[in-house]
């Protein structure tokens, strides 16, 4: 397993509002033997705000990180779906458009032509570690967790750069959750948008979008939503309670990171601390776990 070594791009949210995602990702990687070396002096990818307002900036900000990754040589691992998307799209554009590559090189002051692979943690766990290996590591029974897998936008679109097996009906997260004993509920809203880039500015729109997601998740019989993106989790959690006033039916459905459930299944420490830091209380779900006799 020691062949899994990556340059790690943590992304801003993972040391801020999504610290539980960063911490649980690192804990899971340690347990699975995935070596992470943090990218030297990395900067923010610019997220939606850069590509929505300034095209060259939106490639140059990730360009500085790609230049550092080129220096460091290893493949890159990313956990935030938005960072993953910006890194992959910028890399693809830099490598396929020499004029753009030169502009970025000029702006960054260094060669941004990083040719290594950029991988999302979900991809690495499902396809490199493998589900059979994962099954063998499960120590805690999670059949009290009835989850709908929520991929959102940036893990799956655009399909030319993303890793998922289907753009309309991806199954990586479904299969991973099944492998660790979670009851996966079927639903048709796996890849519907949460409105992340409008999270602070047009909360009215975001409330409508997340209300639809909660309603559908509840209809499918789920008691939690599982995601792999800090923007999705923030939108879903932040707009759930204030929305109580505008929703016809109030929702109270926890939203978890897949890495938190992985850590819980493998009986790693700190899971309760992470669950406590969620805006929607996820701790009661811990009462549904059981230990698996080996």
């Amino acid at each position, binding site marked *: 397993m020691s062949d899994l070594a990556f340059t790690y791009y943590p992304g801003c949210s993972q040391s801020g*509002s999504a610290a539980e995602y960063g911490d649980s990702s690192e804990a899971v990687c340690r347990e699975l033997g995935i070596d992470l070396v943090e990218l030297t002096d990395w*900067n923010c990818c*610019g997220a939606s705000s850069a590509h929505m307002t300034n*095209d060259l*900036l939106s490639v140059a900000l990730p360009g500085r990180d790609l230049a550092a990754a080129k220096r460091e040589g290893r493949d890159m691992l990313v956990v935030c779906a938005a960072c993953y998307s910006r890194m992959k799209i910028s890399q693809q554009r830099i490598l396929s458009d020499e004029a753009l590559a030169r502009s970025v090189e000029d702006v960054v002051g260094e060669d941004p032509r990083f040719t290594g692979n950029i991988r999302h943690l979900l991809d690495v766990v499902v396809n490199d570690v493998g589900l059979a290996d994962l099954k063998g590591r499960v120590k805690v029974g999670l059949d009290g967790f009835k989850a709908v897998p929520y991929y959102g936008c940036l893990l799956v679109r655009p399909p030319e750069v993303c890793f998922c097996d289907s753009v309309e009906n991806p199954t990586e997260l479904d299969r991973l959750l099944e492998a660790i004993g979670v009851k996966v509920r079927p639903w048709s809203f796996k890849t519907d948008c949460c409105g992340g880039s409008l999270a602070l500015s047009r909360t009215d729109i975001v409330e409508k979008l997340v209300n639809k997601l909660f309603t559908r998740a509840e209809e499918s019989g789920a008691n939690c939503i599982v995601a792999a993106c800090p923007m999705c989790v923030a939108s879903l959690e932040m707009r759930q309670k204030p929305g109580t006033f505008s929703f016809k039916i109030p929702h109270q459905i926890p939203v978890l990171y897949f890495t938190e459930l992985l850590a819980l299944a493998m009986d790693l420490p700190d899971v309760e601390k992470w669950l406590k830091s969620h805006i929607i209380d996820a701790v009661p779900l811990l009462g549904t776990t059981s230990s698996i006799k080996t």
Partner: protein
Amino acid sequence: MIDTANRTLEAKLEGSTGEKVRHCYQCKKCSAGCPVAFAMDLLPHEVMKMVQYGQERRLLECSTIWLCSSCETCSTRCPNDIDIARVMDGLREMSLEAGLAAEREVRTFHRSFLNGIKLAGRTNESVLIGQYKALSHRLFDDLGLGAVMLLKGKIKLLPRMVKDRGSVRRIFKMTKKGS
């Protein structure tokens, strides 16, 4: 009256985004699948048609280009391979340059977000939210939520920064429009 195709805008957008809006034949799959369509003043297929007809001013002034969340559902479903979300990016940039941009709040958010990166090299939610609230004059929205986030440790008050902030400032300086 709009009755003639006018290639000027379409050609400009092809130059900046590489997308060929002339390939649109109005199947409306983009509008049918758009999660934000309910809030838009022009539906995505109408934006495509108006690009073909060179309706530049109406497009640069519309709300739609700012409400598009870049989820790319339209881009993946377009039978003519037009990356519609990318066209929206191109229109937004033109709209800012022309000083015609609608949806002040959305723009203020993007500006606050990028200002934060310019200063620290990384995004710090506390700085972002503070700046956005000050610039948008919406200081008291979400106050209860802010308290919950602080209690849950979601808002870190010490900003985390890139060491070589000069190199980040340089990126902003060199990509600034008109330089």
